[in-house]
């Protein structure tokens, strides 16, 4: 076994190139962000430009083929890019194009579709939202009702989606709709890529405690049949290629749990009752317990990364990682509250520890961000483990 990526001289030279490029393209005094996924308008503007530059280099999807806008690089060089980017507090723009949408296009799209969408996605010319959930179809995604009726070369869509996107603009809507209401569950829907400015689409922001989401209303929205990804009524399987990644199947090598490390540092540096918080036996045991859980999360992420990149057949590993992250998030929030008391809840400029990140975490952890509730992860995980029934395999993804 080997738990490390090893870099050759050439790869280390490439790292210098990346560093140099970042030096040129990042401002010197980047402020840390409370929530990198929720930039201010100024940060948003800057980030749009920055990611276009990154896209031009092919570095937003380094291992993808160049012809589709990827970098055509090896997995090792991709890691170099990941590692270097992770060193900077770069504001992120909510865009599921590269992470969730592209893999589905890669598996299910026609060559024409790949040519049409993958480049703009990779190059960050467009931002993509995923429109799967509906008010009555949350954990039970197969219960969606938004309807697409074929009309010549087009489909006509009516219905409502929810929990989508961010407060910033979107270009393309990766949308799941019912194309055959009479067919059985899982065989009745299709996936579409829809231009966000198509007439009949209304975006309504939701008022939420920790992040920004929208509802989307479709009122006789006409979508070209050429925008359908995968065969008609095979949308459920298309969606699985996305959900597999969303449920943690992608893995990662750079997942230090920042919040845990910040909490440990905070406790080392905060004096209470005449000694650092971290010297208190009870707090110390708790902090180390979190550290260990973060290590487990890191190792599972690395395992998934390795499995994905070596094309190992995976089973329960994706949702296992995802579940761990979600439950760890709320456990961590409780621990922060236990140790910090009211300081866990203020974002007041005078009194908030760090820059209000602990306060943000109290709210944000309740959102269990990414890929549905912990319960959904458990459903998938049990199926893959094969409790009661023979185990299921993971869906194909890229």
């Amino acid at each position, binding site marked *: 076994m080997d738990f490390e990526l090893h870099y050759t001289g050439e790869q280390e030279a490439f790292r210098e190139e990346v560093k140099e490029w970042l030096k040129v393209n990042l401002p010197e005094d980047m402020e840390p962000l409370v929530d990198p996924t929720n930039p201010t308008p100024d940060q948003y503007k800057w980030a749009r430009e920055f990611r276009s530059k990154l896209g031009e280099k092919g570095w937003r999807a380094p291992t993808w083929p160049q012809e589709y806008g990827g970098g055509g690089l090896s997995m090792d060089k991709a890691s170099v890019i990941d590692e270097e980017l992770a060193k900077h507090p770069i504001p992120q723009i909510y865009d599921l194009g590269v992470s969730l949408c592209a893999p589905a296009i890669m598996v299910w799209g026609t060559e024409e579709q790949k040519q049409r969408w993958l480049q703009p996605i990779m190059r960050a010319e467009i931002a993509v939202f995923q429109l799967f959930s509906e008010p009555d179809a949350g954990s*039970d995604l197969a219960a969606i009702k938004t309807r697409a009726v074929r009309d010549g070369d087009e489909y006509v869509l009516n219905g409502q989606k929810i929990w989508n996107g961010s407060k910033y603009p979107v270009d393309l809507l990766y949308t799941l709709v019912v194309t055959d209401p009479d067919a059985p569950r899982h065989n009745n829907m299709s996936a579409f890529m829809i231009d966000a400015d198509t007439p009949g689409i209304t975006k309504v922001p939701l008022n939420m405690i920790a992040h920004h989401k929208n509802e989307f209303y479709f009122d006789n929205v006409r979508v070209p049949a050429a925008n359908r990804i995968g065969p008609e009524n095979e949308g459920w399987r298309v969606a699985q290629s996305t959900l597999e990644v969303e449920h943690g199947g992608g893995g990662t090598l750079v997942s230090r749990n920042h919040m845990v490390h910040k909490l440990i540092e905070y406790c080392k540096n905060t004096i209470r009752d005449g000694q650092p918080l971290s010297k208190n036996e009870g707090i110390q045991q708790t902090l180390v317990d979190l550290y260990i859980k973060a290590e487990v999360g890191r190792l599972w992420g690395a395992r998934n990364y390795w499995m994905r990149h070596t094309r190992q057949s995976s089973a329960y590993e994706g949702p296992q990682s995802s579940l761990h992250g979600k439950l760890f998030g709320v456990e961590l929030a*409780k621990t922060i509250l236990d140790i910090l008391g*009211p*300081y866990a809840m*203020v974002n007041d400029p005078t*009194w*908030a520890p760090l820059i209000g990140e602990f*306060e943000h975490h109290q709210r944000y952890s309740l959102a269990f961000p990414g890929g549905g509730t912990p319960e959904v992860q*458990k459903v998938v995980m049990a199926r893959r483990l094969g409790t009661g029934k023979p185990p299921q395999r993971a869906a194909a993804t890229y």
Partner: protein
Amino acid sequence: MDLSLTEAQEMIKNTAHSFLEQECSQERVRELDESETGFEPGLWRRMVEMGWVDMMIPEEYGGSGSSFTDLGVLYEEMGRVLLPSPHHSTAVLGVLTILEAGTAEQKGRLLPAIARGELIIAVALTEPNYGWEPESVQMRASRRDGHFVLDGIKLFIPDAHIADKILCVARTSDSDDPAEGITLFLVDKGSPGLSCRTLSGWMGTKLNEVKFESVEVAAENVLGSVDKGWAALAPVLEKAAVVLCAYMVGGGQGALDHSLEYTRTRVQFGSPIGTLQRVQDHMIDCVNGVDAARWTTYEALWKIDVGQPVSVAAAVAKTASSEGFHKACDSAHRAHGAIALVKEYGLYMYTKSARTLYYYLGDPTHHRRRLAQLLGM
């Protein structure tokens, strides 16, 4: 043994319930939460008229001299709808401290004013070195020319922004015993040098930074004996914590009611989600949290009323209520999914209240430490 409410308590409960259903809708509570002060004088006036504000005040001072269990029954109803008000600061902490430490003159002057709803008090104990032990009281009050001068910062103080007077706990002399040398001051909010700023954050109650810059307080505004303030305050904190627990029981019950309803009406996979075992388990955690808080709290209230030692029961109740209300809300979120994050749905109000009251008047670690002492560990 009789674990039922008295008829009078049933009446308190029912009256409070219908009043709050009408006057304190979820929308109104949320509006108040998003307003600058979170306080509505009209609602406070109605509470005074209902006789809620004078319950801890003996009849001789214009109050009704109710029992703690009576008050607990009311607090549970208040918690159920998360009624925002300075009731606990003023009518519990304030009144009990004045009763414990005040002179006859002070009682005669202050208590009827509170009973009439004309005096709002905020208790300022905690400081940047947050804690509820006497050790944590470090702010100085020094004598000068027959009065006292207060200097320092009190932090995370509820209701200070709407109070008429601040009951400030400060250190007047040093001693090996941290409980010695603490004095209670009743400070006019308008005193020169006193400033108050409401903190921003995710809190169920507005919390304030209260700054004292050479604030002069006349000796007659000392409550109780100089240097002996902690001895008067400690039993008040204990009893007031138990009353707060009743609010938390109600809060937990509110989150539970919300969620049970949702598990019955939300349909996924063709059935109400409450038929799924995982959702059921969240509801079981939720009710267990609420019931742990409930029964430890009512036993402690009863102990206060019958004059039994309550220190152990109070520490048990506050720990169980902090943990129980928190668990109830986290379980409620788990049973809901994304809808719980939408402000209009309202559940988050319980969630942030649970987190705020979790540490107010001492968090579980504090009370467990105290219990360890009391149990001779």
